[in-house]
């Protein structure tokens, strides 16, 4: 069974059909790319998947469970985590606390235990610290763990956002333009990190990206979106050589 199965998803804003009849199937462990011109509806699809918008039509199945139209919080608990096109970190929290916030649901203790500093508080906080530092090490951020998130350089902020999303223990990770604003070196490093996450966390990744080097370098399959509709989908190499795609997006 596929990990993510979207059937005929659609949403309208007023008279504008932003996403129409969108279907996609992603197998477990796949690295899947979603590309297309600006305004094609890529981020809208992410917002539909994560419950920011409610779809007008279609269904979303995650691991066989219907999560169509559920609330953002419940969808995250069901196993989808995401990053944002414009970075959304908790800027006045430290790097470590950003990740620990991601561990919120998997490491519970009551508010009263927190205020009264009951034994459970120390136990769970210690587990959280260990888990968070472990995650930060993957992204080479463990040395900056006491820095405020807003003081990190741009590339590291992007990485921290991924670390925070991973902390929620998702089955599917959605990355919205992870390489935006990065120089070629940083992009290359990011590609390694994404591959590492997929292999070591057993993760399935769906990403939106305009950087064709990244897309062709790591994505196994692609879906091209144009005016809210699927232009074509398939293996990366095939899609990138499709004359329709070249005409609509890549340019001749």
């Amino acid at each position, binding site marked *: 069974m596929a990990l993510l199965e979207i059937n005929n998803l659609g949403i309208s804003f007023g008279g504008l059909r932003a996403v129409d009849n969108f279907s996609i199937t992603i197998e477990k462990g796949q690295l899947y790319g979603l590309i297309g011109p600006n305004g094609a509806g890529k981020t809208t699809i992410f917002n539909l998947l994560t419950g920011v918008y409610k779809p007008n039509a279609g269904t979303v199945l995650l691991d066989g469970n219907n999560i169509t139209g559920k609330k953002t*919080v419940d969808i*995250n608990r069901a196993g989808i985590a995401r990053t*944002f096109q414009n970075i959304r970190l908790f800027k*006045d929290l430290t790097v470590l606390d950003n990740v620990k*916030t991601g561990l919120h*649901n998997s490491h519970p203790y009551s508010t009263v235990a*927190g205020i009264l500093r009951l034994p459970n508080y120390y136990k*769970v906080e210690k587990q959280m*610290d260990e888990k968070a530092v472990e995650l930060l090490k993957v992204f080479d951020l463990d040395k900056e763990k006491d820095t405020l998130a807003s003081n990190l350089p741009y590339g590291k902020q992007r990485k921290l956002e991924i670390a*925070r999303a991973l902390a929620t223990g998702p089955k599917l990770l959605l990355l919205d333009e992870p390489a935006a604003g990065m120089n070629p070196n940083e992009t290359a490093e990011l590609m390694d990190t994404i591959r590492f996450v997929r292999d070591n966390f057993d993760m399935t990744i769906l990403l939106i990206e305009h950087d064709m080097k990244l897309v062709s370098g790591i994505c196994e399959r692609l879906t091209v979106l144009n005016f809210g509709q699927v232009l074509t989908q398939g293996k990366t190499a095939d899609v990138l050589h499709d004359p329709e795609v070249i005409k609509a997006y890549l340019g001749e």
Partner: protein
Amino acid sequence: MEKSTAKKFHIDKTFKTNLITYSIVIAAFIIVQLLISAGQVSSLMKGLLVPLCIYSIMAISLNLTVGILGELSLGHAGFMCMGAFSSSIFSISMMDSIPNAGIRFFLAILVGAAAAAAAGIVVGIPVLRLRGDYLAIVTLAFGEIIKNVVNVLYLGKDSNGFHFSMKNAMALHMEKSGTIILNGAQGITGTPKNSTFAIGVLLTLITLFIVLNLINSRSGRAIMSVRDNRIAAESIGINITKYKLMAFTISASLAGVAGVLYSHNLSSLTATQKNFGYNQSIMILVFVVLGGIGNIRGSMVAAVILTLLPELLRGLNAYRMLIYAIILIVMMIFNWSPKLIDFRKRYFHLNRAKKERV
């Protein structure tokens, strides 16, 4: 090995900062007690000791809403009003049933906190859907409503039990032997004077303990994540309504505790523009803003300085408010000017580096 020492340092750092905050309160208490026993404190100053605690608690609790939750509330005095009146009514009506003043006052504090918390939940559920200016306006209105409602309430007690009216004292239809507890705009008279400086300081410490520990816990992180980025907080599975309401309610109930201290410090309690109106709410907000939004210790210190200042300057008569205003401006610049923030950071870093070398 290296990892474990680094982690210890991290925990110690927040712990140390909190310890300094508690120590400041305890040191202030000891100094004041020494001055009192040496006969150095005028009766005017003695009268200010409990209000100092009240305003500290108010400032700390409002900072939870404004600084930690990041929502502007202008009705904080309304919650104080809830705590003050509910606890006074409790104390007077339980005067005979619970003769022990200590236990009665302790229960009164719980009643005040619970009443204010209930008001916090009732107001919070609809209001926390709003953000920014809208939230400020609605909380402002709430504060005024509470104050005005209290002014038309009549409550009496006789052998048949409680009597309640919103018209006038006559409408209570009480027996001759009955007593009027709450007499409309004339308020409540005869609340036992249980508030002392020691209890005030103790409650300030408890307030600090609750707020500081909340901030440095799982729930505190959730509250701050909602403040910093609501959409991201939701995307990682944080129930934002729950944590907003939690912060707002805790903040309200602590304001209720301040209200209990307030009402049990005066023999007659009325709800006026001066004590529970929006002037008061804005005064508390001034403490928070000047002390530093999100800076718990700072707001407490600002509350103490700005409460003491008008009294200390009394001798200067005409220049009093002028100097007060100047100090307000200086504090504002000291806390918020980017250059000074930079300077302080550098200075403290220098100090820390020196200490580490030693």
